[in-house]
């Protein structure tokens, strides 16, 4: 699993990247009450706003970690946004994407690096 400075995680699965937010990010957000997902098939560029998360406190954007195409979204989150708090690094993935430029993965941290990053 790789981690971004935007507190997202990426996990490779069947040649695609599964993307979600970290346990640390979910704790910071507080209780998540609404998730708006992108449409499957959307082509995105790194740092595009692709997901909106609303917690009891505020709205936050999830950015596309890399260039690519959204191939699948976790529609269960729309009905049960609280999953993001319950299991952010497991069940509550946001979307899967096909990466167009593998080299963008080089910037990301491993678990130990991310733990150090969040201090």
């Amino acid at each position, binding site marked *: 699993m790789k981690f971004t400075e935007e507190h997202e995680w990426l996990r490779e699965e069947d040649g695609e990247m599964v993307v979600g937010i970290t346990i640390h990010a979910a704790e910071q957000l*507080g*209780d998540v*009450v609404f998730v708006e997902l992108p449409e499957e098939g959307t082509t995105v560029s790194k740092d595009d706003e692709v997901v909106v998360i*609303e917690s*009891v406190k*505020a*709205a936050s954007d999830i950015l596309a970690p890399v260039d690519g195409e959204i191939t699948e979204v976790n529609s269960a989150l729309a009905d049960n946004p609280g999953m993001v708090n319950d299991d952010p690094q497991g069940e509550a993935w946001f979307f899967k994407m096909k990466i167009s430029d593998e080299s963008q993965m080089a910037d990301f941290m491993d678990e130990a690096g991310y733990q150090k990053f969040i201090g």
Partner: protein
Amino acid sequence: MDDLAQTPLYDLHVELGAKMVPFAGYSMPVQYPLGVMKEHLHCRAQAGLFDVSHMGQVILSGDSWDAVALAFERLVPMDVLGLEDGRQRYGFFTNDAGGIEDDLMFARRGDDLFVVVNAACKVADVARMRAALEPEITVTEITDRALIALQGPGAVDVVAAMDGRAADMRFMDVRDLDLGGVPVWASRSGYTGEDGFEISVPEAQAEALVRKLLDHEAVEPIGLGARDSLRLEAGLCLYGHDISAGTTPIEGALIWAIQKVRRDGGDRAGGFPGSAVILEQLSGGAGHKRVGLLPEGRAPMREGTPLYDAETEGAPVGQVTSGGFGPSVGGPVAMGYVSQNLSDVGTSLWGEVRGKRLPVTVAKLPFVAPNFKR
């Protein structure tokens, strides 16, 4: 954080693991480890303890109750004179334009008036009262007492176990109680839509009392986050957001708080700041009005969301002044201002969220049935 004031319960909040945030010049707990959602639901199910010591506590005294009450009536459009001893009312200071300068609770304690005002307005409120009422009336800001609220259906059992006299207090009664040797001023009121008490306690004994209350299985500490969602579901205004110096009581849908005796035809009609505007609007109405708003989907419509009467085009017909997720409702809730002709319950509107107009319906307030002991 250096210039933030602390309440007498600051150390306890930190010890309890609260996340502290700046609020109205104070460092206040926004949430505890339980989190906003569970704190909210706990308060509605059992009992929640809130530190509201940042709010202003003021005593007005004079030669007689009549002198105090009639003086205070010069600042508020409420029936103060008719308040019985041991009773409390909701009210607000108005300005010359009929706008609301602050909202407040006032209680009669013998011949004195005990006023509780918002933290962010308290300096201005005390100055306003001193300027308008002294020297006839003595205005004393109480700075050596904490203020806590215990709210929820379980609150009465907790308080009554310490002083049985709490049990037969009705909504908006005020009474001196002895809570385990601590003399307090209690009112059966609050700002959550639940039954409960607000308790003014000498600051030196505040922490010990709160620890004793928290010892009860039913009681959890509740932060400002859940306080906001609780009061929003209860349809109660947050000053500076849902009402302000630029909104009149008629616009703010607070007509119910202006007793008949201060309206046209009443014995003491008018005589408060902005009375001409307010009395005129009482008969003629205002151009826009505060309403409840129930978004149809799951997306919260937060403060500032513009409202439209059509799905496309057209100018805004109002905007959201408070909005978020209502944990007890299980979905988003909001309130805001709309044109008078669009303010009927059931009116279909659209709120623009992230560039998209989403359906929202004008709804009856409160969103949850109040649980007061009438």
